């Protein structure tokens, strides 16, 4: 491998790829070749940097300079200025929206501060389509260590001692899961990687698979060695074509290098990995449903026990872990349980990747130690609320998680604290809401998703969630009554208590947690028939302040339903009976005369 004095890394994650980062890569390559610098400067297409809100992103190493919102035409300038003259291209640097300061390098970017990258250790650094880069970054060293220095029981003990818990949502101790699968004797066993990431807005698993696929392959092989399985399967949604392509490349390269297949590293251990495609049903993230889907059956959960560790894929003992969990395995094996235990809180060890979304300045992917407070995540790493608005709530755990509020800002985020706060870790989605968000509508929004994604097998989830959604809709239309709030609570509790799988058992969480934390907002919807956040259309009333209105008639002319009347140079009025609350008048008014009640 040749030594380069400089590397230009182009983010090849799905977000930046969709914004044409491929062309940036090609143009940079052409420029470098034009100056005959290909032996000195390397252009790399990497996985996701996590700075998705700033994409497409280009990083120049070793200067650690990050260029944001780069277009393919910028390649010339990056090469002529930065590479040849050593001058940063100022206009492509990120400007802090609050302080207006230019943040040129990775350490300066707030999104990168406080992060600790274990899962995402290689994402954005290596070329995911080149196994040699992965190997140079220690890939397969942990597998070698396990195969040559550790017995399966010893390896499981390290995982158990590390305190690693499943990152898919449940938080079940990974080592214990492996141990159970190991103890269930069978001729055939399976290792399954759950890559059916389905929470809207969460994409950490996709990022790992796109940016560092070998981390997952290696961990699956280690798991196979530990539990006594020779077959691995990755269940991935077909909507992740880039991840699928990179996985396929990684698998074939690993086979070529003797890191998958028979007699791995000459140790006599056999393990190979296949890919199974999912059609994108959220419920298939539930492990029994996932297994049924892999078997070609309808993706529906079944009652546990039996757990997959006893009877899983084709009735054989099967260990299912999600992508992020697997991505933790190799560092744990290499650096030891104590190292991993030293990160995080008492019962939640290591780090957690969060997908920041919503009304936050730095949207994207961040990895922080467990126990980081919500305040740190939202205000330091996330860069605070957009447009200087006030923080209202953060939804964690995806559509079936709950809302955390201001009072939770200083709670260290870990599995147990989130559950105690009425939410859950889930896969790590974190959606931030500000003062403009109506919490009744937020609950309705999330429920809409679970109603759509329920498999329909059990009645509380199939019908109950629909009824919850209908009642929320009713309330946001101003038709609710105070008694409806008790009904919401009762239905939610029963759905949680009686549903067959995790989907229904958690789908009412957004309703319950908003009822708990924002009860007065619900009350206002059903008693005063007002939406305090001014989001519920049916509860709004547009109103003209007489004192401000100069009678310019602009509003009356723009109103599509002729709800506004008034003489020229006289204050106008809006007829609420006719008004359809489209907001056109308010937008048009230059005198701030129109307000919403």
């Amino acid at each position, binding site marked *: 491998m040749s030594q380069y004095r400089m590397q230009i890394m182009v983010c090849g994650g799905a977000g930046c790829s969709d914004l044409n980062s491929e062309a940036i890569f090609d143009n940079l390559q052409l420029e470098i070749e034009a100056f005959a610098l290909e032996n000195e400067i390397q252009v790399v297409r990497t996985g996701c940097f996590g700075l998705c809100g700033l994409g497409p992103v280009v990083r120049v190493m070793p200067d650690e300079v990050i260029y944001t919102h780069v277009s393919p035409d910028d390649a010339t300038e990056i090469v002529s200025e930065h590479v040849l003259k050593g001058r940063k291209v100022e206009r492509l640097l990120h400007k802090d929206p609050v302080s207006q300061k230019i943040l040129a390098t990775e350490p300066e970017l707030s999104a990168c501060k406080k992060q600790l990258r274990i899962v995402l250790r290689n994402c954005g650094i290596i070329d995911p389509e080149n196994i040699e880069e992965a190997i140079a970054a220690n890939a397969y060293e942990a597998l070698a260590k396990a195969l040559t220095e550790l017995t399966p029981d010893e390896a499981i003990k390290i995982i158990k001692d590390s305190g690693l818990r499943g990152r898919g949502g449940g938080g079940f101790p990974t080592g214990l899961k492996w141990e159970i699968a190991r103890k269930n004797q069978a001729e055939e066993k399976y290792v399954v990687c759950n890559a059916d990431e389905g929470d809207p807005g969460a994409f950490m698993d996709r990022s790992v698979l796109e940016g560092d696929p070998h981390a997952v392959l290696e961990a699956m092989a280690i798991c196979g060695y530990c539990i006594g399985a020779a077959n691995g399967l990755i269940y991935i949604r077909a909507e992740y074509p880039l991840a699928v392509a990179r996985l396929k490349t990684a698998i074939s390269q690993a086979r070529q290098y003797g890191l998958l297949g028979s007699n791995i590293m000459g140790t006599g251990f056999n393990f190979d990995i296949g890919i199974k495609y999912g059609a994108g*049903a959220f*419920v298939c993230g539930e492990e029994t449903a996932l297994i049924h889907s892999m078997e070609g059956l*309808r993706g*529906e959960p*079944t*009652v546990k*026990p039996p757990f997959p560790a006893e009877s899983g894929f084709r009735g054989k003992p099967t260990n299912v872990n999600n992508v992020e969990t697997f991505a933790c395995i190799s560092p744990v094996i290499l650096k030891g349980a104590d190292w991993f235990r030293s990160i995080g809180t008492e019962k939640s060890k290591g780090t957690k990747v969060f997908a920041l979304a919503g009304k936050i300045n730095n949207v994207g992917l961040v990895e922080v130690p467990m126990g980081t407070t919500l305040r740190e995540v939202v205000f330091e790493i996330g860069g605070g609320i957009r447009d200087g608005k006030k923080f209202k709530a953060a939804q964690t755990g995806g559509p079936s998680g709950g809302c955390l509020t201001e009072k939770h800002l200083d709670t260290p985020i870990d599995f147990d604290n989130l559950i105690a706060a009425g939410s859950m870790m889930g896969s790590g989605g974190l959606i931030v809401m500000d003062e403009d968000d109506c919490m009744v509508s937020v609950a309705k929004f999330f429920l809409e998703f679970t*109603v*759509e*994604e*329920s*498999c*329909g*097998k*059990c*009645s*509380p989830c*199939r*019908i*109950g*969630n*629909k*009824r919850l959604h*209908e*009642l929320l809709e*009713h309330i946001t239309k101003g*038709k609710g009554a105070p008694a409806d709030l008790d*009904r919401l609570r*009762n*239905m939610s509790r*029963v759905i*949680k*208590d*009686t*549903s*067959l799988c995790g989907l229904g*058992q958690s789908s009412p969480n957004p309703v319950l947690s908003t009822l708990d934390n924002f009860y007065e907002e619900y009350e206002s919807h059903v008693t005063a028939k007002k939406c305090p956040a001014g989001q519920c259309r049916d509860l709004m009333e547009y109103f003209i302040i007489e004192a401000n209105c100069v009678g310019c008639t602009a509003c009356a002319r723009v109103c599509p339903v002729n709800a506004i009347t008034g003489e020229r140079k006289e204050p106008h009025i809006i007829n609420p009976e006719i008004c359809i609350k489209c907001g056109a008048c308010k937008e048009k008014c230059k005198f701030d005369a129109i307000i919403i009640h």
Partner: protein
Amino acid sequence: METIKLTIDNRAVEVPRGTTINKAARLLGIEIPVLCYMELKDMNIENKPAGCRICVVEVEGRRNLAPSCATNCEEGMIVRTHTTRVLNARRTVMEFILSDHPKDCLICAKSGNCELQSMAHKLGIREIPGQEIAAMSTYRLDTSPSIIRDLDKCIMCRRCEMMCNEIQTVGALSAVNRGFMAAVAPAFEQNLEHSTCTYCGQCVAVCPTGALTEVDHTPDVLRALADPSKTVIVQTAPAVRAALGEEFGMEPGTLVTGKMVSALRALGFDYVFDTDFAADLTIMEEGTELLDRLNRHLSGDKSARLPILTSCCPGWVNFFEYYFPDLKEVPSTAKSPQQMFGAIAKTYFADKIKVNRKDLVVVSIMPCLAKKYECQREEFSTDNNRDVDFSISTRELAAFIKQANIDLNNLEEDDFDAPLGESTGAGVIFGATGGVIEAAVRTAYELQTGKKLDRLDFTELRGLEGVREATIDFDGLPVRIGIAHGLGNARKLLDDVRSGKSQFHAIEVMACPGGCIGGGGQPLHHGNSEIIKARAAAIYAEDKKKPLRKSHENPFIIKLYEEFLDRPNSEKAHHLLHTHYFERKKKIVVKQ
């Protein structure tokens, strides 16, 4: 056996490992209500998707309520079945289910026999909160020749799906759509007619609600009866008399042959005949065909294909036409008793009473829904006039009798009319699994050996075992017989025939578990297999009572051959009493 001790509602109980909480509770006399769950013990049929969530209970130490039907007992478990948490959850879940169910009980075919209705009553549901804003999941009504699917009434218990796939291996029904619109339907939500449905009706037999019902032909029958220009005759299948009484509060297994005849007369049928007569005729034709093939086979004729398969069951005929078309030359070409009856009635009998076949309406009372389809098959019509005009099920007949305010319990017993009402015990046992082949053996033995049988009860051919095998000694010639009931069992047997693994001379197949007595048109047994057994016992009791128990001794059959058909398998017999089979390929049709 390893046992487990646990406490249910503060009472200790000890059960074998693998026992569910629900069954353990039953041992204590605690009936935890179940809705989707269903068990047919002796046939190893169990449906427990744990989907309805009605049977939930509280298990100490568990975060959520557990479905008692699908949760196994564990050592030291503490279970509570009626805490306020459980009762509230059960009621709320029931309200959910009812909120998405039509409230048209008044005109629903299942009213009074609906498990959802009973459960609503049991749980004391008097109103459904929020019904005024609740959307309903609605679907296109699907009407086939035999079965109506009204999925608005489907509660996703999945019983039909289990019967269709696991028991019958027909694979016509499976869950489609997701969430609120999930339902059980043929692939791509096609109509049943475009699926591989055999119309066995087992889905209808287990459906707890009115989602799956038979096509009701009683209005057509009533119209024919009311038309003075028509002569309306009726035939009744053997299994009907063993179950009809249940609909009138009689014990399962009560034989109501004579009362049924009186009721049919009271309903206005001009002649009341017996399908058993045609069953005897079937034995003459099928038995002769068997002996012909057997003897040709024994003499080394390679074209004689064995085993011969029975062909009385229309569900079974549909099944092999879909799944085993390569074996379509193997089954007997004999028509089913229903169709033989129709063919004789519209020729021989019509001539006898000097009525044009177009003015003679033949109605059959069948334990079966596939018979509705069978009588509509094109090959069973002459000049667009069906041999059997309408087929109605035991359930429909019961309803018809009730509509006419006839009290079956208090009717005098009456006899079938001659000539098509006379039958032997051999014809009666057609109603139970193994009966057709036993009847065939009684005749074939005597015809083949020329000797008189000393015993007539071939108990080795009876029972509820899914696949049975027996060798009958034909005076030195061992005749190997296979029996299957339930199409899944038939598939196993057929796969063995196809692969050459099995060496049978004759095989009897009945599509429904238990045979016709467990047919899709019978009074609902709600999963109680004791009822099936009682019906079988009644059939064999009727056989025992009959003075004649061998088909070839039926004097009216002998007379029929003398006067009309010449001899079994004659050219005329072939023309009227035999058929042929088709390869069926199903086309996907775009949804209307």
